[in-house]
């Protein structure tokens, strides 16, 4: 269909731009601190690349589009980026429904899309995993998908059991696709390890009253809650827990909790909560690039609006994604997706990049999760690019797992 593009009034789609500058389209929820962090690191990456001569001597620039976390908005922004701005690559997207909503259009146009925020495995299995040729423009450089995260979670739970003797847990999750793997595999896995799953609830993402949930947790007598919240903001949950001085642990993933000033924002209610986050929240050197990057971010944005301490997980991934793309283009010698998408794909799949969130490699065409970020395993086969941070007293953020990155030991909640 794109061959008709030049022949009809109004023209067709973008068709890319075989001559520079190389334009990166960045899609994120820009009214969310997470999106703000991602926008800033995208700018940082592009500025750095420009300072070092651009990509293949071509200028690089980035255009930001606000998805507002809304699939319909994201669809029209994606169209705008491709048709009006003629971007050569798209980077970003946070919630999986946004990622999946733009997937068909972007695949149709053949623009490379590098996802840096959403973790649902179905984004891979239902698209590129189902029809490789149609969706081979898709890549995910981070975070590792929730199936891997679930596996890593089980190992973390073992670690908690070793430390504190915890063996009874309550599972709470967003009622959303990215949590499906957790809900499907964790109960069985925990059972296998001999733990007791005292409570298992999927919560409506529009929940506003957490009291019944807290009461259920208290009644279940669980040692810790393992919660997976990206849509749900659990701040009221933490506030009530703090006010009632409850001592169950809070583990898992909580995107809102990744805000660098979160302990302060919740007036200390977030103390002892942990969350996994790509990049480790700037507490530790996941790779040798991590801390210098966080330092540079802090310096540049010290006087800006939050997030100030570090850009939150998507920011780490976006920064890496842009650098991965740069290297791939230089390796393959092309960014012209309209004529040589396969060349770009081949180059991308050769990625072995030391990023700020971890060592980045991508699965190949025949893997279970084609073009998805590979999980890093240590010598014992445990997944290690799944750092977990904990808010410790006085607002200190520490990395508590895995051991090779930990800066402090995980603390049991007390009041």
């Amino acid at each position, binding site marked *: 269909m794109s061959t008709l593009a030049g022949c009809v009034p109004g023209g067709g789609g973008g068709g890319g731009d075989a001559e520079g500058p190389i334009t990166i389209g960045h899609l994120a*929820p820009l*009214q*969310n*601190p997470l999106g*703000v962090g991602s926008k800033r690191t995208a700018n940082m990456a592009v500025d750095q690349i420009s300072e070092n001569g651009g990509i293949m001597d071509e200028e690089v620039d980035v255009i930001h589009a606000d998805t*507002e*976390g809304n699939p319909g908005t994201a669809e029209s922004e994606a169209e705008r980026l491709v048709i009006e701005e003629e971007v050569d690559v798209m980077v970003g997207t946070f919630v999986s429904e946004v990622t999946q909503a733009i997937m068909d259009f972007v695949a149709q146009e053949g623009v490379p899309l590098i996802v840096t925020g959403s973790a649902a495995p179905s984004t891979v299995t239902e698209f590129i995993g189902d029809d490789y040729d149609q969706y081979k423009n898709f890549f995910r450089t981070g975070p590792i998908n929730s199936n891997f995260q679930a596996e890593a979670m089980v190992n973390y739970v073992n670690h908690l059991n070793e430390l504190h003797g915890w063996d009874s847990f309550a599972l709470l999750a967003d009622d959303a696709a990215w949590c499906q793997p957790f809900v499907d595999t964790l109960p069985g896995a925990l059972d296998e390890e001999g733990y007791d799953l005292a409570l298992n609830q999927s*919560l*409506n993402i529009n*929940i*506003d*009253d957490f*009291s*019944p*949930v807290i*009461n259920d947790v*208290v*009644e279940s007598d669980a040692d810790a809650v393992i919660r997976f919240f990206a849509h749900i*903001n659990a*701040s*009221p949950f933490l*506030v*009530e827990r*703090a*006010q*009632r*001085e409850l001592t169950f642990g809070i583990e898992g993933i909580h995107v*809102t909790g990744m*805000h660098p000033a979160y302990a302060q*924002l*919740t*007036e200390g*209610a977030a103390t002892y909560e942990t969350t996994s986050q790509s990049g480790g929240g700037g507490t530790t050197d996941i790779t040798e690039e991590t801390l210098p990057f966080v330092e540079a971010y802090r310096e540049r944005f010290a006087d800006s*609006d939050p997030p100030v301490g570090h850009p939150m997980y998507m920011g780490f991934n976006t920064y890496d994604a842009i650098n991965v793309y740069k290297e791939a283009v230089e390796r393959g010698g092309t960014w012209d997706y309209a004529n040589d998408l396969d060349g770009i794909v081949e180059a991308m799949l050769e990625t072995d990049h030391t990023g700020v969130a971890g060592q980045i490699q991508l699965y190949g065409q025949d893997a279970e999760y084609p073009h998805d970020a590979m999980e890093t395993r240590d010598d014992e086969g445990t997944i290690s690019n799944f750092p977990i941070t904990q808010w410790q007293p006085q607002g200190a953020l520490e990395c508590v797992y895995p051991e090779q990155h930990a800066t402090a030991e995980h603390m049991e909640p007390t009041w």
Partner: protein
Amino acid sequence: MLSGLPAVLINAALISALYALIAIGFTMIFGVGGVLNLAHGALLMAGAYVYLLLARDTISVPVFESMTLHPLLAFPLAVVIVAVLSYLLYAVIVQFVEDNPVVTFLATIVVALAATEVVLHYAGSATHTYTLIPDGMLPSTIDIGPVDGILTVDVVGFVVSWISIGLLWVYVTKTDSGRAIRATSMTERGAQLTGVNVHAVRARTWLVAGALAGIGGVFLGASTSATPNMWLHPLSLAFIIVVIGGIGSIKGSIVAAYLIGFLQTGVGEYLGQNFRGILSLVLLVIVLFVLPQGLFGREFDHE
């Protein structure tokens, strides 16, 4: 399950007072001017965010320098500000369109949507939480009878709500200006004929309703959180309560608020969160078809 019953009852009783407060403001405006103020939820939102602005320095707006006032100062100030905002809403927009209920309906919801954008612009889409009662003042939980772990802020909200309702009752029954409001809501023409300045009454009603919304908003934000979309749910709740209780009837709003409060808490606890909203909606539909004038009100028939 039954061991949870006292806790459920107490929590329901506490939250219903807040619901009543929210509904009363809505019903007063509906009763006096025949105006469905769909921006009522936005005023609640304003209460929460204005309080945040005054008591915390996490949001920055132009011109206004960040301050962290003590809650005892920030709270009344926030309430006054929201009351003024409500009055301005009437004076600047509504009074020019109130002759046409449909246009007013639409104008107020557009105001609510515009308010969301303002909040989004200055406070972002992030959720803001705040504790109303500083640690030093009161313990954060209270034990009531067999139930312990009741949040103090919920109890304070309950007390403040009832005090406000009480003060309101005194105002509309014992004072001339308050009685004028009540008279106008019963029959506008009749009130005019007895020399009531209907316009002044309306302005006053919006001011009072705004104050109630301000109080409700601060407590709502404290017990749940402040988000840019927090206005839709309390608005629909207020609408449901007012219809069930009867237009313009303060008594009706209180009774209906307790009905809904207990229903929602009970359903949420025993049937799960997903059904909480649905059952209230079903009750509303039933009431609308069976008892359109509500429990205590007259049918909507504004002259």
